[in-house]
């Protein structure tokens, strides 16, 4: 992702903000779409496109759970484990997904296909226990078989063309 591409993305919305600092978060989200995380080069490009220092841009990025400053898998699976989901078996679901993709709890599978993370309340307690793939619609209530089916379909799909996390 180049600074030029980010600037082009920002051009139509620049006038919507009285302070250009507000562009940093949209720019970071846009930059993350390419690789699914934010390598140093992407941070530098965001800094150049917005006119802020790379150190500042990184300080913002590091605050937010869904901006990844380390590499993650081609798909990020978030299993909600907050109270409503816990009461409906989210811990077992998390363990089951981990076993399926071969991680020991949270982490990235050896083939780099999946990163599994436990999430705080995803706002889908009516679907508990639920999971979310990247920032797609939350799915649930899930039996372990249904979770396997979702993972199987993701394996068949491979990497997305753009990452929305």
């Amino acid at each position, binding site marked *: 992702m180049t600074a030029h591409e980010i600037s082009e993305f920002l051009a139509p919305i620049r006038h919507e903000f009285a302070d250009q600092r507000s562009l*940093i978060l949209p720019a970071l989200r846009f930059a993350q779409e390419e690789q699914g995380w934010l390598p140093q080069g992407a941070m530098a490009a965001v800094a150049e496109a917005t006119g802020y220092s790379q150190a500042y841009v990184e300080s913002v990025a590091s605050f937010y759970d869904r901006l990844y400053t380390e590499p993650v898998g081609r798909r990020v699976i978030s299993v909600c484990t907050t109270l409503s989901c816990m009461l409906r078996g989210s811990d077992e679901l998390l363990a089951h997904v981990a076993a399926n993709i071969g991680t020991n709890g949270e982490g990235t599978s050896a083939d780099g296909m999946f990163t599994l993370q436990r999430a705080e*309340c995803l706002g889908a*307690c*009516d679907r508990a226990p639920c999971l979310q793939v990247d*920032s*797609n619609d939350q799915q649930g209530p899930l039996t372990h078989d249904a979770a396997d089916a979702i993972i199987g379909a993701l394996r068949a799909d491979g990497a997305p063309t753009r990452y*929305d996390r």
Partner: protein
Amino acid sequence: MPQLNSVYRHREFQDLLTLTGYERAGGWNGLKATLEMTPDDALYAFHRSGLRGRGGAGFPMGRKASFLPVDSGRPTYVVCNADESEPGTFKDREILDKNPFQLIEGVAIASYGVGCERAYIYVRGEYGHQWDVLLRAIAECRAAGRLGPDAFGPGAPFDITLYRGAGAYICGEETALLESLEGKRGQPRLKPPYPAVAGLYDCPTLINNVETLAALPPIMHRGADWYSAIGPEKSPGTKIFSVSGHVLKPGNYEIVMGETTLRDLIFDLAGGLRDGREFKACWPGGSSVPVLTAEHLDTPLDYESLASAGSFLGSGGCIVMDDSGCIVRASWRLAHFYRHESCGKCTPCREGTGWLEKILGRIVHGDGRLEDLAMLESLFGRISGRTLCALADGAVAPVQSALELFRDDFERVIQQGGSPVPEPMGVINA
């Protein structure tokens, strides 16, 4: 037990995901009525309706709007808080998913009242699907001239900018949200000044929750008096409750305030519990409120009644636990949430939430001592009320109340060497 879909109009009408469908169902009548008033009269109507903030604090919406100075010489902003992240709460998600134009109309109505030409809707980062729905709705409104240079009449511009968060519970706190919207780390500000005086870009700003703003179109169409006559005098109108946990029919229920009890909500609307199970506890207004027991089940659902019962209406996210659940394990899980989501700015919260999780964790895992309960009690007052925002209070409330109401359970778990891992409930509503 009256239900009234005033905000959830998508449950009454088809096709509210297109502008034409929304207009066919009476959409924009609220804004039309508002534009025939002066902004002052619109503000007065907000006030007279009695509508209170639906995000959690319950502050009167009209009063909040009236705090904005009219002669600051600076732009005025309206910001819609769509960062719904309170555990157990998923009511705004359904508005965004199914009835986005009513929210847009509500934002426009509020904006006309306070003289705002550009409003912002801050959407929680995880709500990717809802973001897409809103993007399409905004584009449709712009194409039809509902938003843009002549939105409020010839030469009277109004537009809405969507802004997407990136995963942080704290950004639902209004000043943290503003920080995030300004391109910063989402950490709460010292108040005062309140956002009404110095909010977004230091300008006068009205911040309201999705449900609050989406309540405005019917209020302005049917009249403030219509709304204020629904339910109790101090808590008028309808409120959406999200019910989750150990109930057979988890979901959102829009009810008339004060005329439905907690028991009606849980055992009638939400289908009650599994056969053979007893009610144990519920957190009626999201997880940041004191827990309630079976003896509170006949409490009417409105701000005053829930406060009298010792809890809060909060966001209306009602989490229900039956007797298969362990109150200590539940408290520990909530403590984990607040420790994870503490932004770290205030020491009592940053350190205190860590201690709460650690102590509850060792009790759950069999390493607790009876002295831990006294240590927990000594912590509450050192965390609560000593921070910039309410996250710390929210972390303490469910734990402190659980310890007060279920002390025997805490002692038993310690004496029995931990909390047994619960049997999974299985999927009962697939």
